[in-house]
């Protein structure tokens, strides 16, 4: 990066909010995805602006000089959308971390992009309000990143995803202008729905600088149960029956046999190791109706052949049940050093087929794929357990992942439910959008970002 540019950036954000050393910049060549950035992808500079005006100036400068800009929050992106690309500006939004207001009368909150999702949730919950989206990374991930990726989570089955809670935004366009979208109302049809377009735009259309979120009343209570099945098919069938029966749990999580075995070995939570699948189900709402709801779910589980059912009667017991789910990741990470979490999502009725086909793909390429999923919304996280130092296996893994994508689209699903396309899956995007769909998206991108400076390579490839 030219010294004049660094100088200009230093003037904008101040010396203490700008990084240029090799060691500092090397730490922006990764995010939480499996994407490998190289030393040649080293950024030219990383800046931490503190205001929307600073961001506007940075983007004007970048646009003028045609320097790529990669926006970044906590760097927990799982599709390679926040890794640096050669000589770019990494724009980190973490300093803008204030909750600006919580409006109980209108059930909204206004936050800056660097606010940590979990912090917002704790704060509104103290007031009896609820912001439901719960990506696994919520303890560290930022609201800006969640909006840019349209993050989901286990509660998606009942409460939807980030997009369903964003009422309005303030953004800086790639050319530097500051723009607001949507507003503070539930109903709003003035013009195109730019809020929805920007939510999930993966940092390719704008930099988000302020977010107006919708809040809902905090459910009074929760009830949790675990059902164990000897066959995966029974568990998948149970998921369909629960949904078809008009019951909407707030979480409906599925674990396969590979997970069950490893969790039991690791955390000793009392799971039968020969079981084919476990469902972890949580319902929430008014306390009077909970036992009735959980009773109905229990009845469906029994009817479809659950061999063991545990309903938590206390908060502590519920915690114990969740322990199994929370130990899932740590338990499989002991099996192999490298873990790749995929995010293919299928219509809920296709879960049994998807699970079977993924298992066939694993057998074909002789690799281990464990399945854990937000089964209630069809979002399967096929987890590939491998060793990245084993080059030969890595090649097989890559082929298997390609096949899983093709399969997902074939079943009427989505390449990504909640992780995003990023740089990791950009080559597959036409599988789902088609040529025309992609062309239109490219035109939108070009209209807003004529010089292609904002997160180039994401979604559309290079």
């Amino acid at each position, binding site marked *: 990066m030219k010294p004049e540019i660094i100088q200009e950036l230093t003037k904008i954000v101040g010396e203490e909010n700008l990084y240029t050393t090799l060691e500092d910049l*090397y730490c922006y060549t*990764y995010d939480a995805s499996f994407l490998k950035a190289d030393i040649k992808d080293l950024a030219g500079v990383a800046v*931490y602006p503190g205001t929307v005006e600073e961001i506007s100036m940075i983007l004007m400068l970048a646009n003028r000089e045609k320097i790529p800009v990669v926006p970044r929050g906590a760097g927990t992106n799982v599709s390679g959308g926040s890794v640096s690309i050669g000589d770019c500006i990494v724009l980190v939004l973490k300093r803008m971390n204030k909750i600006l207001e919580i409006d109980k009368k209108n059930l909204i909150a206004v936050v800056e992009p660097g606010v940590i999702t979990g912090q917002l949730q704790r704060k509104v919950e103290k007031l009896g309000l609820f912001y439901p989206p719960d990506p696994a990374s919520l*303890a560290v991930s930022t609201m800006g990143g969640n909006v840019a990726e349209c993050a989901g989570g286990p509660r998606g089955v009942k409460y939807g995803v980030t997009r369903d809670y964003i009422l309005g935004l303030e953004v800086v366009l790639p050319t530097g202008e500051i723009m607001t979208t949507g507003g503070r109302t539930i109903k709003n049809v003035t013009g195109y729905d730019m809020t929805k377009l920007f939510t999930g735009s993966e940092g390719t259309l704008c930099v988000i600088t302020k977010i107006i979120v919708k809040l809902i009343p905090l459910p009074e209570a929760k009830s949790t149960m675990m059902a164990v099945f000897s066959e995966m098919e029974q568990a998948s069938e149970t998921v369909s029956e629960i949904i078809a029966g008009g019951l909407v749990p707030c979480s409906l999580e599925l674990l396969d046999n590979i997970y069950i075995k490893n969790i039991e070995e690791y955390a000793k939570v009392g799971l039968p190791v020969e079981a084919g699948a476990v469902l972890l189900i949580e319902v929430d709402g008014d306390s009077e109706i909970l036992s009735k709801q959980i009773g109905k779910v229990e009845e469906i589980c029994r009817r479809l052949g659950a061999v063991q059912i545990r309903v938590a009667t206390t908060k502590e017991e519920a915690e114990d049940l969740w322990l199994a789910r929370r130990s899932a990741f740590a338990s499989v990470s002991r099996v192999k050093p490298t873990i790749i979490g995929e995010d293919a999502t299928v219509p809920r009725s296709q879960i049994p087929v998807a699970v079977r086909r993924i298992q066939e793909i694993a057998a074909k390429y002789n690799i281990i794929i464990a399945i854990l999923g937000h089964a209630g919304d069809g979002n399967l996280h096929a987890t590939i357990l491998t060793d990245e*130092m084993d080059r030969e296996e890595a090649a097989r893994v890559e082929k298997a992942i390609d096949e899983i994508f093709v399969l997902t689209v074939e079943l009427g699903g989505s390449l990504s439910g909640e992780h995003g396309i990023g740089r990791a899956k950009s080559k597959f995007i036409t599988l789902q959008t088609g040529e025309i769909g992609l062309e239109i998206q490219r035109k939108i991108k070009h209209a807003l970002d004529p010089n292609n400076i904002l997160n180039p390579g994401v979604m559309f490839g290079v």
Partner: protein
Amino acid sequence: MERSFESWEKEVIRCIRCGSCQNVCPVFRELQAESTVARGRVKLIRGVITKDLSLTEGFISKMSLCLMCKACVTNCPSGVKVDKLVEAARKEIVDQKGLSSLKKLIFRFILKNRWVFDTGMSTGRILQKLVFRPGPGGQGMLPRMPLGIDQRRLLSPLASKPLKAMYPQVVKVTNPRLRVVFFTGCMINYIYTDTGRAVVNVLNRLGIDVVIPKLQNCCGTPVRMNGDYGTAREMARANIDVLLQEKVDSVVVACGTCGLALKEEYAELLQDEPRYAERAKHLGKMVKDFTELVVSLGDFKENIGELPLKVTYHDPCHLVRGLNVKEQPREIIKQIPGVAFLEMKKPDTCCGSGGSFSLTHYELSTKINNHKVEDILQTGAEVVVTGCSACRMHILDGLHRQEAGMGVMHTAQLLEMAYEAKEGIKTGIKI
């Protein structure tokens, strides 16, 4: 065969860069740059192994920015041993680049040679009055002039007599039920002799003979954490020889860092040395924190007097995450009638001391400490109890900076006060 730096690649690749460490790393909380959080350090180490990077000044400085508090290790979903990786990197730096001459003097001449250390400390005890003035309320001392230490920095003075000089080699009781060795560690021996005295007194009261070997050395952790493995091994061997000479039931520590060295790290350091590998393991099995030993004797609850005090407890990193001692000190505190135990928010977050870290990165270590002090003050407690002398000094410094008149003491001292209260002895400890 000594483990090569490259062999750590197996551990490095287990980091999946999920970023969970951002939630717990005290250094990252202040600095926010990606290179200052655990996954950044792991990536940098990987960069050196794969030769993207080399042992530059920049790399060395990033590796120095770790408190070794183990918070990331406990919180890591994949269980990556970040502390061991940073230590391996520091060792590689020393192996390739050598030690700075100041560190060489401190590690290889002073800490390693007990007589030099002893002589230095007794001279220092006289000279310190010239350069330090007493702190408020009789606790600690403040620099009178710039010493390269912040002039607001409250240090605790060297004791007028080291602990080892206050006692015979064996402090006996009549009809002992146990016999233990007390590994004092440097801070208890030279600075906080009040903690040492309380440990001895409490153990004696409980019918335990306490052996305090004159020949014990510094545990070697400061040396090892700075990458000087050669010296650390010599110190480990010397301590093993001294401690295993005694016929005792346990080796008692009152410092989590010393305890972890004796319990686990000596065995790791000496695993390739046929004469010492087994002996280090044997020693490890005998190590108990003071509170572990006390709580294991159910009858410590007898003869406790009343102390009308509001007390909070800070978990030292190496005691809670190293020796897994969390409940025992709380059990002791809660047994004392009259004591109101007020748990602070996140009691196991590092106080920012990190041993020599607080000397080399004072500003940063102060910022980290400010959060700890805020959490302490929020409880409304009158006394902070902890299980580590370095934490005690650092928290005392923080309280002083924020002008809070609170006392900080070791769990052993609180328990001693409670026994004395029963006997009607008025204690001199100021609160």
